[in-house]
């Protein structure tokens, strides 16, 4: 099992969800996030005072997948989130030790 953490443009979340559901990966967690990478921050002005805001709005998607679906899931997310401009985001993959479905107590890939 692997845990995928994708930091993407907020406007791409729907497309990513659809792409993952098409792979029968059901279940994901999305949260609002602020962050920066190579993309520069933005300058905001309030009453003439400039504020440089380094952290830009992003969405953080967390999804756990069985090993055999990992490559397909990564491709799906990359394609759905791609625009080619700076600021498309990043995907991180980490090993997942275990998973538990609380309702039934099932463990391992079956709990995903």
């Amino acid at each position, binding site marked *: 099992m692997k845990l995928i953490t994708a930091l993407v443009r907020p*406007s791409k979340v*729907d497309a990513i969800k659809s792409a993952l559901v098409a792979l029968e990966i059901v279940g994901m967690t999305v949260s609002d996030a*602020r962050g920066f990478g190579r993309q520069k921050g*933005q300058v*905001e*002005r*309030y009453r003439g005072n400039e504020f440089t*805001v380094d*952290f830009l709005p992003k969405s953080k998607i967390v999804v756990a997948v069985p090993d055999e679906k990992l490559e397909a899931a990564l491709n799906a997310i990359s394609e759905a989130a791609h625009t080619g401009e700076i600021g498309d985001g990043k995907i991180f993959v980490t090993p997942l030790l275990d998973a538990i479905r609380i309702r039934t107590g099932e463990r391992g890939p079956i709990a995903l």
Partner: protein
Amino acid sequence: MPRSSKSGGGITAEATFDRLRTRMLAGIHSPQLKSSALVLLAAGAGMLPLMAGSAKAALTKMPTDGADTLLMLMGSALVLLMTPGLAFFYGGFTRAKNVLNTMMMSFFLMGLVGVLWVVIGYSLSFGTGFGSPFIGGLDFLMLNGVGGPLGDEPLADGFAISASSFALFQGMFAIITPALISGALVERINFKAWFWFALLWSLFIYCPMAKMVWGGGFLGAAEGMMGAIDFAGGTVVHIASGVAALVAAAIVGPRTGYPESVRPPHNVPYILLGAGLLWFGWFGFNGASFFAAKGAGFSFITTTTSASAAMLTWCLIDWFKDGKPTAVGAATGAVAGLVGITPAAGFVAIGSSIVIGAVVAVACYVAVQFSGAGGVGGSSKSVLDESLDAFSVHGVGGTLGALLTGALAVKELVPADYFPAAAKILEESGNFGLFLTQLKAVLFTYGFVAIGTVIILLIIKATVGLRVSPEDEERGLDFVCHGEEAYDPMTN
């Protein structure tokens, strides 16, 4: 604006008014009756500008009345508050990344139209310089001469409100009317395009509409005119803004990704706050449109009663249809009821205001289901992205209100001295006749506003462009158009 009917434009109108006034006062012997007649006359303020130059009969000149003028000043403040109220109402419906832009489309007009009105808008709406039943003149530029050197002179013979308070009151209406249109264009129109649209639309659509309905012009109830009545702006404000919204939504086009991209309102408490401020302000909008404090009780009561009935109706429909009464439904229903009673407020019985509120709520509910999204459901497949239901509420509610005004107007509340053309129709062919007249005025307004709005939008499209780019739309208009963010977690 209700009682503006009197004038025809130019000398004829003034002469007509003088004749009517003299006849009316001459026929009244009891002093008590005479004073109520004066109050009635005072209530007829709308045409003041028309009479201002012609006041020769000293007998009928009324001193400015403090209470009546205070009503207008209070009413002006109330109507002004409706614009930030509308900003909250609309702002709650949009996405968090567009809320400041949405609110600015209303709020900013307090600046733009606020200046425009004083410089030239009032003159184009209520002047007589051009001698035309369609447009005013340049006689009141900078409000020059309005209310005399101290601003305390009455609007015209027979009116007890000061001319300056009338000009201010009318200005507040001019501000909110284009703001209503913004509901159809949110989340994609370029703010620069909005600036030019609001400016041109105010001058070339709103001012002629105000002249035609309230300034003694073509559609109004003055002698020899069409005879339609509009108490506080069903035609001038709500139909005009609703039709413009529909046309503008078609020309500007839907938001990118519509209708799949539509989201629920980002802040429902804002919607309730906005609706509350609108309701409160509507006491000025309709109530103070009676132009005389003593008789304004009815127009205040019908206004709030209609809103209550409409909110109740909308919630009950929600309840029966979907099992739960919704907060957004309650807010929308209240606004629909206020829109519906606007043309009727001073012309109908109190019982009728309940009927108007309920009927308008049902009609607007159906219209909102058809037009789709509105921020509530997003189920519509319609390609016309009338985003915040400006037409479904203001256009449909205003139209139905105008027609119901014809059907339900009470003869005693449409006195022949103030509304000669309308009273004549009521006398000769009853409410059905007035209904048909209202229908004619509504259809004329649809045509005039639709054509004018199309021309203005095409000019803007060819010059400054109408929309932001799809990338900017995705980023959010708060940052793109204003360089600000409404909610930034990093500033916590």
